[in-house]
């Protein structure tokens, strides 16, 4: 098919206009039946953001009458969804209008999938919350609004859908608006994050007030949903916030250049600015802001740049460069709101990894202050959080990190929790409070001054002390040690055939006993040319094929589980 040229259209003018367009990210959320996919399909279709072949591929399919288009099919991606008829994951959609480019994080409204809603909201400037006008305010709509508020999505657009089903009745719309405003006020007072809400009566199926203003509701004089989206201020402009710059990488291509690469998390930076590096607390001045396109005389969030300082400081990945005038808090413990995202529930004192800005730090949760019931907003006492549960916890980090409260900074106040054993992302966290590390130290318990107990070591490291004997090819033994190291096992490797142990037959036992008492896993290694690997721990022995390294490594981990050196989980799960 040949391209057609539109008379009066100038590509050069178009490109100049495009250069000025910004980007707005918004999340959508809705219950299974309240027409979210239809609404998005309608937005894409009415803004000419879908191609003919995509429309052709869904024509005549789905649940609509013959000849009509089921807009929901434009956005339902995966086979499983097509089979179940529901959206099951976060899907991203793109469209643009003459005024702005948009990214939609389309998140499911099914109750099980709260975690996806939080995922979509984490990067959103706005949230479109759907309410089915024929059903009124349901738990799902409250849940969405709560998560949008918790993740500090600034603008909430409440689309009251299916107005066609209730005869475009104004009174019904006003009742829903009044009820939901009350809900939003309660939510804001719980999360501490104000919500700016705007209500629009729509019908996604009929196209009322989605892109074009509707003739069916003369009583509504406001803008359509798309007009609202086009006019919202985007929230990535943080130039008035304090400067925060997590160091991702040190660039030193040769001895003349040493720069710190990262993405500005908030604020603005200029050459000559005084900065402090946290957690070390050392200061310097910014000398250059280096980019491939040339040095900048000013850079602001969220640009990715490289900073050169006026004198040498010991800075590495994970450090936070901040404005000296308003530094961040350095803390080893913090209070955080968690959204739990894994099948395996939260375990107190289990070893997790916190990923915060550009660093990963081992951590554990010492207590759960409360769980929040999103339906009633009640705070309930609890001992764990299950999938989709939300609660406030006390978090202890093994190394101090520089952070801000999430309410003040959506980047340096955010973290994810990773299970050190399964490597799964198990929770999203928003820091609500942290006190300075130097002032309070790490532990608040009365036993803070006593000897370190075996139980404390186990809680921190996730395993007991013990001895693992390994005989086999050295390369495979290296892989096993690496895999244990990766999951955070604290081990000490002993070459059993070394002279000292041969000369002093009892030395090996003395050393391993001491290490076991200190909670370490001793790896007693006999390297050989064999094509099998033998592993022994706590009297149990396995022999596996050394040519299948992945299976061999996994078998050794199994052995450590079965012997109880790896502490078994009390909860169901892995």
């Amino acid at each position, binding site marked *: 098919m040949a*391209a057609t040229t539109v008379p009066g259209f100038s590509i050069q003018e178009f490109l100049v206009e495009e250069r000025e367009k910004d980007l707005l990210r918004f999340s959508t959320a809705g219950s299974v039946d309240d027409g979210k996919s239809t609404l998005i399909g309608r937005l894409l279709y009415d803004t000419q953001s879908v*191609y003919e072949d*995509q429309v052709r591929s869904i024509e005549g399919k789905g649940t609509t009458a013959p000849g009509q288009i089921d807009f929901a099919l434009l956005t339902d*991606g*995966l086979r499983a969804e097509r089979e179940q008829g529901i959206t099951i*994951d976060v899907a991203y959609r793109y469209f643009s209008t003459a005024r702005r480019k948009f990214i939609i994080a389309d998140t499911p409204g099914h109750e099980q999938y709260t975690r996806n809603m939080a995922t979509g909201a984490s*990067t959103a400037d706005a949230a479109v919350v759907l309410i089915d006008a024929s059903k009124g305010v349901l738990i799902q709509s409250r849940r969405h609004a709560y998560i949008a508020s918790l993740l500090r999505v600034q603008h909430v657009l409440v689309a009251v859908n299916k107005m066609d089903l209730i005869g475009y009745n104004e009174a019904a719309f006003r009742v829903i608006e009044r009820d939901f405003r009350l809900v939003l006020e309660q939510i804001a007072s719980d999360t501490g994050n104000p919500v700016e809400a705007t209500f629009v009566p729509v019908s996604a199926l009929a196209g009322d007030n989605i892109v074009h203003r509707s003739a069916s509701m003369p009583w509504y004089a406001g803008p359509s949903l798309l007009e609202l989206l086009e006019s919202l201020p985007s929230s990535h402009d943080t130039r008035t916030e304090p400067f925060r710059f997590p160091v991702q990488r040190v660039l030193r291509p040769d001895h003349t250049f040493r720069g710190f690469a990262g*993405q500005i998390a908030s604020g603005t930076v200029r050459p000559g600015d005084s900065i402090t590096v946290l957690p070390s607390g050392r200061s310097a001045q910014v000398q250059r802001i*280096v980019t491939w396109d040339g040095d900048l005389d000013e850079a602001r969030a969220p640009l990715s740049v490289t900073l050169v300082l006026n004198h040498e400081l010991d800075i590495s990945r994970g450090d936070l460069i901040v404005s000296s005038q308003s530094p961040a808090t350095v803390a080893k413990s913090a209070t955080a709101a968690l959204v739990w995202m894994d099948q395996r529930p939260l375990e107190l004192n289990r070893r997790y990894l916190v990923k915060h800005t550009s660093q990963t730090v081992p951590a554990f949760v010492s207590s759960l202050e409360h769980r929040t019931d999103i339906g009633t907003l009640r705070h309930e006492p609890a001992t764990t959080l299950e999938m989709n549960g939300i609660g406030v916890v006390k978090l202890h980090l093994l190394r101090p990190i520089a952070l801000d409260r999430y309410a003040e900074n959506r980047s340096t106040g955010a973290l*994810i929790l990773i299970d050190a054993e399964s490597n799964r992302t198990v929770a999203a966290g928003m820091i609500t409070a942290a006190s300075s590390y130097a002032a309070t130290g790490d532990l608040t318990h009365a036993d803070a001054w006593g000897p370190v107990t075996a139980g404390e070591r186990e809680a921190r490291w996730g395993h007991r002390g013990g001895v693992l004997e390994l005989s086999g090819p050295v390369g495979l033994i290296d892989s096993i040690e690496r895999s244990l190291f990766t999951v955070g096992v604290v081990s000490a490797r002993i070459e059993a055939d070394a002279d000292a142990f041969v000369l002093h037959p009892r030395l090996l036992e003395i050393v391993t006993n001491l290490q076991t008492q200190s909670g370490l896993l001793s790896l007693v290694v006999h390297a050989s040319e064999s094509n099998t690997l033998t592993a022994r721990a706590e009297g149990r022995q396995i022999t596996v094929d050394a040519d299948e390294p992945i299976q061999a490594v996994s078998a050794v981990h199994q052995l450590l589980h079965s012997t109880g050196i790896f502490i078994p989980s009390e909860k169901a799960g892995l």
Partner: protein
Amino acid sequence: MPIAESETPGLSSQSRVVTPRSLSHLRLLEAESIHILREVASEFERPVMLYSIGKDSSVMLRLAQKAFFPGPIPFPLLHIDTGFKFREMITFRDEMARSVGAELLVWRNEPAIAAGTNPIALDTRRCCGLLKTQALLDALRHYNFDAAFGGARRDEEKARAKERIYSFRDSAGQWDPKNQRPELWNLYNARIHPGESIRVFPLSNWTEMDVWQYIHEEDIPVVDLYFAKERPMYIRGDALLPIEQNFVARLGEKPQLVKSRLRSLGCSPCTGAIRSDAATVADIIAELLSFRSSERANRVIDHDQEGSMEIKKREGYF
């Protein structure tokens, strides 16, 4: 890794000072992609960039130059060569790697190529399975890569719209769409067990239009096949088939000269051309605005079967 001399100006000399542009959508997308490239280079032991020679790879390569400037790109490029790539693509690839100063690795499934694998003899799904997916998995295993960048975008296809930026693959390289890790803010979970890997998509949030606008604004070189020229084609109904491979021709079929270009670059037997007069990047953008069919409509592989991209991805395809 051996890295040839690269042209990176301004190591020690002060380069020109530019005033910051207003943060347009392209600057925001660029900043996000650079952040991803730096995270992966810092958190994985052996990352690699899949370089497919197309426009998306060209943009990804430029972003990598920007991310590590004034240093070199700290990982190699890997091209999976099916043997059916256009000759101009191979020439462009070698020239590009040289001028950027990156290490280029090329991997071919030689046994399958020697056995005469082609999409006419087999169906396209099995052909792709052997020459692309199998070759890719073999290459990743051979070099022990634990992270691989790909230029895929979420706007390309419905199955890709749900793909994470860090896409976890099990030890067989497979994707499980029901069991993806949640991905919040810009905090990516890079933790894997031995044998597992992550596919990384730094251009996830770019659209086809964004890519062309960026190429236009940044003056990024792309393969000449994207630009309209008189080219010999087999004409079958609406489809234009390039004449690179003999086996594509049907009995008695004669090529004709057609002013045409390729909208996306793949293997010559499975990539149809379109009639076009677009001779510059600006022309292509103008043409894009007038299009009524999506970018991959000329790719045989995607609509072989309902949901075929998703099936391929589950098996380890990019």
